[in-house]
């Protein structure tokens, strides 16, 4: 990759694990990356992270290009847009890099592996079950998501819709899907708008940590506290107060640091040839044990964790 390698430091080359999350400075992502970092240390790899400050669709591309030029061999990325990153990822693969997507996926042909927290269907079903436990199978419900084009959120929402349509217990009326753009203020106001526009709303599903926290904050400060159920994916450390004050009864997530951890190990396995990304390949992932690559290069980290007032103290390490 061009001139200048002589004067280079230790970056690039075969032992660098480069992580490009959606953006930096977001608690969930910090948590993910902390797992990645400790795994890299265990493996003796150089850990590098780089990402834009905003989660714009195109803003990750220059970072991928930089990795291409640096000759990095393992690039892990959570695309903000499944397609926009593809040309850059193609360049990287042409240059011999292994590409892993984690947290959110790109188009399947642009990467070698996708490390997903939990199977899409399980995430969707888990949240619906929690809602069913609280409000039963009837009434108006709504979804408050992240950005309109967020790939993982959209996948979960699709799966939820399919499940509602197919499961006879679920006779809910899904009145609206709104987007808080993973922005605290915006999510807050979207939550408020939902309650105002749909007076009979019984439950809200917010499959994003920013959205569920903002919605919980709004509910806890309004007359709807305890009357409207809220489920979704939330950070235990952040949501604890709402479990305590009764705004929220139960929510779900996984351990984000495990996602980063597993991604790092998968990267090593790819680069040392243990796996190619084909279905059925297996690899060791340190403290997490052995994993098998599924169809379409998909690797699942684990199960959905459900948090409630009883078990929250066990899990509130999942924060900072």
């Amino acid at each position, binding site marked *: 990759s061009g*001139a200048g390698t002589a004067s280079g430091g230790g970056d690039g080359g075969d032992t660098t694990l480069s992580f490009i999350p959606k953006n930096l400075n977001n608690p969930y992502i910090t948590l993910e990356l902390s797992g990645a970092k400790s795994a890299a240390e265990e493996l003796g790899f150089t850990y590098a992270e780089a990402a834009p400050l905003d989660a*714009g669709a195109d803003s990750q591309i*220059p970072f991928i290009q930089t990795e291409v*030029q640096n000759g990095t061999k393992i690039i892990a990325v959570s695309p903000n847009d499944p*397609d926009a990153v*593809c*040309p850059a990822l193609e360049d990287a693969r042409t240059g011999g890099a292994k590409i892993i997507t984690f947290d959110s996926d790109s188009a399947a042909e642009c990467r070698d592996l996708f490390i997903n927290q939990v199977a899409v269907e399980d995430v969707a079903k888990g949240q619906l079950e929690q809602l069913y436990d609280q409000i039963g199978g009837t009434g108006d419900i709504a979804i408050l998501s992240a950005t309109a084009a967020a790939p993982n959120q959209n996948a979960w929402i699709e799966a939820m819709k399919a499940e509602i349509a197919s499961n006879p217990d679920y006779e809910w009326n899904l009145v609206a899907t709104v*987007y808080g753009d993973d922005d605290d203020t915006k999510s807050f106001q979207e939550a408020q708008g939902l309650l105002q526009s749909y007076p009979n709303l019984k439950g809200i599903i917010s499959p994003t940590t920013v959205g569920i926290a903002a919605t919980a904050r709004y509910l806890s400060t309004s007359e709807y506290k305890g009357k409207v159920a809220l489920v979704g994916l939330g950070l235990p450390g952040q949501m604890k107060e709402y479990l305590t004050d009764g705004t929220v009864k139960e929510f779900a997530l996984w351990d984000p640091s495990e996602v980063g951890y597993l991604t790092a190990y998968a990267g090593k396995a790819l680069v040392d040839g243990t796996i190619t990304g084909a279905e059925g390949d297996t690899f060791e992932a340190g403290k997490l044990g052995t994993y098998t690559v599924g169809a379409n290069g998909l690797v699942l980290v684990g199960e959905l964790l459900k948090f409630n007032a009883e078990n929250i103290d066990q899990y509130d390490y999942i924060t900072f």
Partner: protein
Amino acid sequence: MTSAPTATFTITEETRVRTGLSRLLLSRDGLFVAVLLLLVLVACLFVPRFASPVTTGYLLLNAMPALLIALPMTLIIITGEIDLSVASIVAMSTVTVGTLTTAGWPFGAAAAAAIVVGLIAGAVNGVLIAFVGLPSLAVTIGTLALFRGLALVVIGDRSVSASSYPDAAIELVGAKLGGTGIPVLAIAVAAAVAIFAIVLHATPFGRGLFAVGYSKEAARFVGIRVPRVKFVLYVLSGLMCGVVGVFWALSYSARSDSASGLELTVIAAVLLGGVSIFGGRGSILGAVTGVLVIAVVTYAMRLQRIPDVTLVIVTGALLIVSVVGPSIFAAVRRSLHVRRVQRTLPRPARAGAENAPHRRLT
């Protein structure tokens, strides 16, 4: 005619008129270009792998949207106006080309439609600013929201990937000039830069822009049709944004949030390039250099894996230094000059004691 005595005193060595090349080299633009070259040199020497054709390719392609929009933006700012809606127009254009292509339009037709959309958006700005006479800052804050909103209306939560377009188009965007790494498209961009530079600096139209920037009323009195000039500029801006939108769709993807925030990047670069926000002063060379300085600094810092936080701070600091610097420089020069004058001019005879009466008038 009578030979009137001259009333202007000149200190000759300072009014000596500098000509041609030496003037350019000593001008702000000249210095700024030198700064750019120095930056490139430093980056080549100290940033590993910077000196490579890969850099030229990525760097130039990444800078292209800002560069193309900076051209009409420079003209607009020189007339004392501003266009904050550029990024939203790019998004509309991107979304248009994406949606129409997926709807089965041939790519060429979709791209043309996208450019027309940009043109119309520019015309909307132009009508409101030039003919209705509204302040451009306010209008384009409004259309910033409106155009982005319309993009959202058209494409909603979908996105159209670059792979939906014909391979020929995609290849053209990626094509490089031999081993230099310079994108083929750079030729077109260079041509655009040259055209804008000529229009601004060497045509009657461009001359008029400076006059409009300094004083709209005085410009009117020399027969410049100020509203029409402004309208043309906004349409031009819309047109460029339309073109950039097509480029954007081909390089990245078409989404409602494409190019968001690009307006501030472009304006920052143009201002960094010495174009006066008050109008009347600036050059295409300066603006282009401004875009490239930011592009080079960004690229070099990212190669070094210096976090974007630093980059943001550096961009802001550059912007401030670029405007505060000259003004401090001028102040220092002024005070030096005053001191020199005080030394060269004969001191007036000290007013003697008889001239300093102690009595006060009430």
